Each structure stands twice: as C-alpha cells, then as structure tokens.
C-alpha cells in the first residue's frame, strides 16, 4: 500500500461514502444521520473485516511506522467505520417492519460471519451479496410497493403478498436519483474495501538460489503494488 493510497485515496473514498450514504432525495434533499443501530452494525462489520483479514490494523498502525503514518492509518480505520455505518444506513429500509427484519437479519448474518471466520476473498464476496440484496430489496422491491402509481412489479408483488397489510411494508417514496446515488455509493464502498491493506497469510517461497524461506505479507503486497 502506498502512502498516497493510505493518506489520500482511502480516506476520501470512505468519507465520500459516509457523505453520500445519508442522501435521500424526495421533494427536497435530506442528509440523514445514521441511526444508533447502524453504529452497532458498523462495529460488527469492522470486526468481520479484521477477523477475515480484509483489514489489517497492524499494517496501518504499529510502532515501526512514523507518527504521521500512524495517524494516517488510524484515519483509514475510523473512515472505514463511518463509511460502513452509512452504508448500512443506506442499504436498510427506512422504517417499519422491513427495517426491523433487515436489522435483525444483518446482525445475525454478521455474527454468523464472525463465527465462521472466512478468509478475505469470501468475506468480500459475501459483503457484495449482502449489500447487493439489500439494495434490490430497498430500492427496487420496496420502492415498487411504495410507488403510488404502481407498475407491473407492484401488481406482481401485490399478487404475491395477497392478504398482507401493506401498511407494514410501505416506505417513503424517494426520487429515482436516490437509487442511483445509493448504487454509486455502495460500489464505491466495495472498491474501498477491496483496497484496504489486508492480512495475507504467510506461505513458503523458493528463492533463486533454491533455499526456501517464509515470505512475509509485505513481500507479497509489495510485488502486487
């Protein structure tokens, strides 16, 4: 990881996610601060990143680095936390039963991921599925149900949900721009996550003279960079 990526690119990406994660466009533009519960989700999420090795805090903050580099590293960790909080704020439904169910589902999913301890690649794939599904649920399915005009999707969903009171499902109707901003924000968030300094396990490496040694994670990252 270069100093530029750590000091400039990653904080700006995650702060942009933190900014755009609260944007809701209706007849006015509102910036919604994160609900308290998303702070809990964000903390669990940070735990998942660290446990899976998708985020290696010791590569961002350690005694061998300069004070300025450590501050940059700490900023990346804090920015990652706030970006994840706002990503959850963005991806979860705004109110009612869908919000409650989604929150419970996400907590269970994150706890399950923590317990399963998957590796970095699997966690990143899993997160893509989680945020992708949440996006589809909120901005396509629930938005179709909340649409006062209604379309084919709404009629199909109403047929599927026959007998269910829609009052428990209906959400605030957003301007279509909100969905596009949300999509861009979640993609940006995933890009940021893949660029985080990761904890790559050690593996044996044979040098040119034939002697074997253990390659450090820094060796691999340097060659990748």
């Amino acid at each position, binding site marked *: 990881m270069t*100093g*530029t990526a*750590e*000091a*400039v690119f990653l*904080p*700006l990406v995650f*702060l942009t996610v*933190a*900014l755009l994660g*609260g944007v809701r466009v209706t007849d*006015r*533009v*509102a*910036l919604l*601060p994160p609900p308290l519960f998303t702070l809990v989700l964000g903390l669990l999420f940070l735990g998942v990143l660290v446990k899976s090795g998708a985020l290696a805090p010791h590569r961002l903050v350690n005694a061998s680095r*300069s004070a*300025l*580099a450590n*501050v*940059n590293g700490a*900023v990346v960790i804090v*920015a990652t936390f706030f970006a994840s909080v706002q990503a959850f704020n963005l991806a979860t439904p705004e109110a009612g039963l869908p919000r409650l169910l989604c929150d419970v589902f996400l907590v269970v999913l994150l706890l399950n991921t923590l317990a399963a301890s998957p590796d970095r690649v699997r966690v990143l794939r899993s997160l893509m599925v989680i945020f992708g599904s949440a996006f589809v649920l909120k901005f396509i399915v629930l938005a179709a149900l909340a649409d006062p005009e209604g379309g084919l999707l709404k009629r199909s969903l109403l047929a599927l949900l026959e007998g269910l009171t829609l009052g428990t499902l209906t959400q605030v109707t957003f301007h279509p721009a909100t969905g596009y901003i949300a999509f861009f924000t979640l993609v940006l968030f995933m890009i940021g996550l893949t660029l985080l300094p990761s904890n790559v396990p050690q593996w044996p490496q044979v040098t040119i003279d034939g002697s074997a040694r253990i390659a450090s994670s820094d060796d691999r990252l340097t060659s990748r960079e």
Partner: protein
Amino acid sequence: MRETNVRAIGLTLTIVYAIAIVWLYVRQPQTVAELTGSLTSTVGAYHVDRQAFDDGLRFFREDKFEPARAAFHRADPAEQDARTQFYIAYSYYRQGWGRIYDDDALFKPGLERVIKAIALAPQGRLVVDDPNLQMHSADELKAELEAGLRTDASDLNPLGVFRRRK
C-alpha cells in the same frame, strides 16, 4: 514529492473534508443559495439584499403579504438572516389571522419560520424595533402562532370576535 508531504497533505484534506461533511449534515442546505449562504454566514460575510428587504417591508406594511414574502425570500435566499425570517413569519401570522378563526395552513409555516429566526438569532433572542408591529420579540410571535394552532375551549369563546390582530 516526499512521502511525508503526501501524508501531511492527505491528512489535512481528510480533516477538511470530514469537517465539511459534519457541517453539511448539521446545516442541511437545500439549494446552492443556501449552501453558499450558510458558508458565508459561518465566516460572518453574509448580507441580505437591502433593496429587496425594503421592498418586502413596504409590501408588508401595505398588507400585501405574498409579494412581501417573495421580496423577503429574494432578500435572504439562504435563509440565514434572523430579522428577515421574523418578518416572513409575521407576514404568515397577519395573513392567517382571523376574527373567527386562524388559518392553520398559514400559521404552520409561520411557526416554522419564527423557530428558524430564533435559531439564527444570537443566544436565541430576537427583538425587532419596528413601531408598525405590536409584537416585537420572536418569542411573542411564536407564542401567538402556537396559540393560534392550538385547539382548546377558548376557541369557543364568543368574545374572541373582539380580539385584535397584532
């Protein structure tokens, strides 16, 4: 460029960006005018359009409340001036006031405006020294608007028809 410089510049940029984000979430600007107005008022450089304000005041005194509000909006597009917001609230009060009943559709935005005016005033205290007005403080206006929106037994008092618009 040396890495230390890059890191220092990055840290500065990040801090400035984070402060800007927090500021945006606190202020919630809706338009570019509000955004620039909020920024300039933060550094104490915001001024209302004096000509538009005087036009608004003239219309207000002639009981032409809608043109008055249009002029006040022009004078304070960023909605950052407590005095202008007070006059907008007052225009809603006077227009919505009725001898038999008050118009809630006008009192509600009036109450929102006077709350905004109080929030903008230093220490929340706003007194407008205008002999044309019967209520000089934002607190009085707020209480009057709240009373107008409240539904209670006093609404049925027939003597209410003798009350006067302030």
